[in-house]
């Protein structure tokens, strides 16, 4: 059934090459002792040394990861509770309205989110910096978590809850020992998505970052505007490796969860 023609294979192969070429291009030139992304002079690690010796860049990397992890965690908590709340709503119109509202932030262009948050933070007199960036990242991640958790909640058999209650489970027990274990894959996927959205975000952060505080995306933007610096290439290699580690880790965890699930079903 899963047969695929030779020309199809070639098309896919070309696609993969094009998708990965820019990434490997960056990594390749990060080892160039020359200063440009054309004409490889000789192998050198000087650009990696430049990254390590630049405390500012290290701090930015740490901030970026910290923002991603924290915003992912907070968004996962709010979003999961929100999804459970939405499903528990009896009024169908209310539910629909909330879900539309939820989608607003997902469909909103980054620039609009960034600009409107800038207005919001200025209005309430909040200082721009770590806090405003963190809150913004939580804000655009919450709806994604809701969307990832919702399908799991909807496919859950309501009889499971009835059964648990009949057997004497308290509301808390139902929540921690029935609902949460059941929707765990959704929660996990939501957290993971929030993480990647946060790491990838540029536009929103760019608006609410203020002076002094910067994430990797914003920093690369300002570096790239002045031209090519191979330090960025070295950074991209590091980021690529970290991303691959996270992806492989995520894949291992989910495939184990899937294996466990089929085990149970058997």
């Amino acid at each position, binding site marked *: 059934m899963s047969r695929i023609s030779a020309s199809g294979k070639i098309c896919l192969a070309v696609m993969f090459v094009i998708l990965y070429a820019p990434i490997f291009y*960056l990594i390749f030139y990060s080892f160039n002792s020359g200063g440009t992304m054309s004409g490889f002079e000789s192998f050198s690690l000087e650009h990696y040394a430049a990254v390590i010796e630049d405390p500012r860049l290290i701090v930015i990397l740490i901030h970026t990861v910290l923002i991603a992890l924290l915003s992912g965690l907070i968004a996962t908590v709010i979003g999961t509770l929100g999804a459970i709340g939405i499903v528990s709503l009896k009024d169908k119109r209310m539910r629909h309205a909330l*879900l539309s*509202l939820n989608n607003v932030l997902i469909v909103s262009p980054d620039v609009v989110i960034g600009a409107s948050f800038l207005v919001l933070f200025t209005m309430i007199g909040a200082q721009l910096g770590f806090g405003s960036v963190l809150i913004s990242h*939580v804000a655009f991640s919450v709806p994604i978590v809701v969307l990832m958790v919702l399908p799991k909640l909807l496919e859950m058999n309501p009889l499971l809850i009835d059964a648990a209650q009949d057997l004497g489970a308290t509301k808390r027990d139902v929540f921690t020992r029935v609902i949460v274990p059941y929707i765990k894959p959704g929660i996990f996927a939501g957290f993971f998505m929030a993480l990647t959205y946060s790491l990838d975000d540029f536009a929103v952060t760019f608006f609410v970052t203020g002076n002094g505080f910067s994430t990797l995306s914003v920093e690369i933007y300002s570096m790239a505007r002045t031209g090519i610096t191979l330090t960025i290439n070295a950074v991209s290699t590091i980021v690529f490796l970290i991303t691959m580690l996270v992806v492989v880790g995520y894949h291992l965890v989910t495939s184990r969860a899937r294996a466990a699930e089929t085990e149970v079903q058997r």
Partner: protein
Amino acid sequence: MKTAMETKSRAPLIPYLLWMALFVIAPIALVVYYSFLDLNGNFTFANYKNFFSAAYLRMTLTSFWYAFLITFFTFVFAYPAAYLLTRTKHKHLWLMLIIVPSWINLLLKTYAFIGILGLYGPINAVLEVFGFEPTQMLFTDFSYIFVAVYIFIPFMILPIFNSLDKLDKSLVYAARDLGASGWTTFRRVVFPLTIDGVKAGIQVTFIPALSLFMITRLIAGNKVITLGTAIEQQFLVAHNWGMGSTIAVFLIVIMAASMIFTGTMMRGGRAG
């Protein structure tokens, strides 16, 4: 029908509702409010009048045109790719590999293209081998659209792949058994059944394409001005928040329209 947690309390909803009020409703309300203010904070319709002037309308139209081209080319490449992916052996592994580049920081990928498309980049080196004169490909319409399509392709493939993957294969076999050609089967069976995936893909491409500003600055070298670039310009360079908000209001209206357009896709949870 009873849904899973109808008997449960509504406490979990409270933080979520507060969050949505503060970060969805309040920002939109503030942007609408600011769009009626001039530089000195006085009430005015001037921003809207300005927005409907010839210069702004032309910019809006070009912005739409570029977004349309980007969405079109992304779709043209994404649909066949998604289709081929569903037919590979380890399709989820391959899908994963398509998605991985989308997790690499957007800025890094864009930055790579500054080198690749540049005058001394590899593409020009290849062209030179074939006897062509090297040309500056950066800061052209082509480079802008190419990079944007590159960025958006994984996001378009994902929903299309999902809807193709869910497609009941027996419907395809039935169509073929009843004598439909491959093309007819695609046009009358496969495509209509995957239209939701296509709509979702268009939604995640078109609106962001309207509001790109980083790629226009880095790759198109300010030659392409999109609505997004204009907002950034007004907010962060000209400090004219009123005008910036007016353009943002326009984008919000477009977004609302697109949500209605794709509304059938995420119908408040369970359809029944």
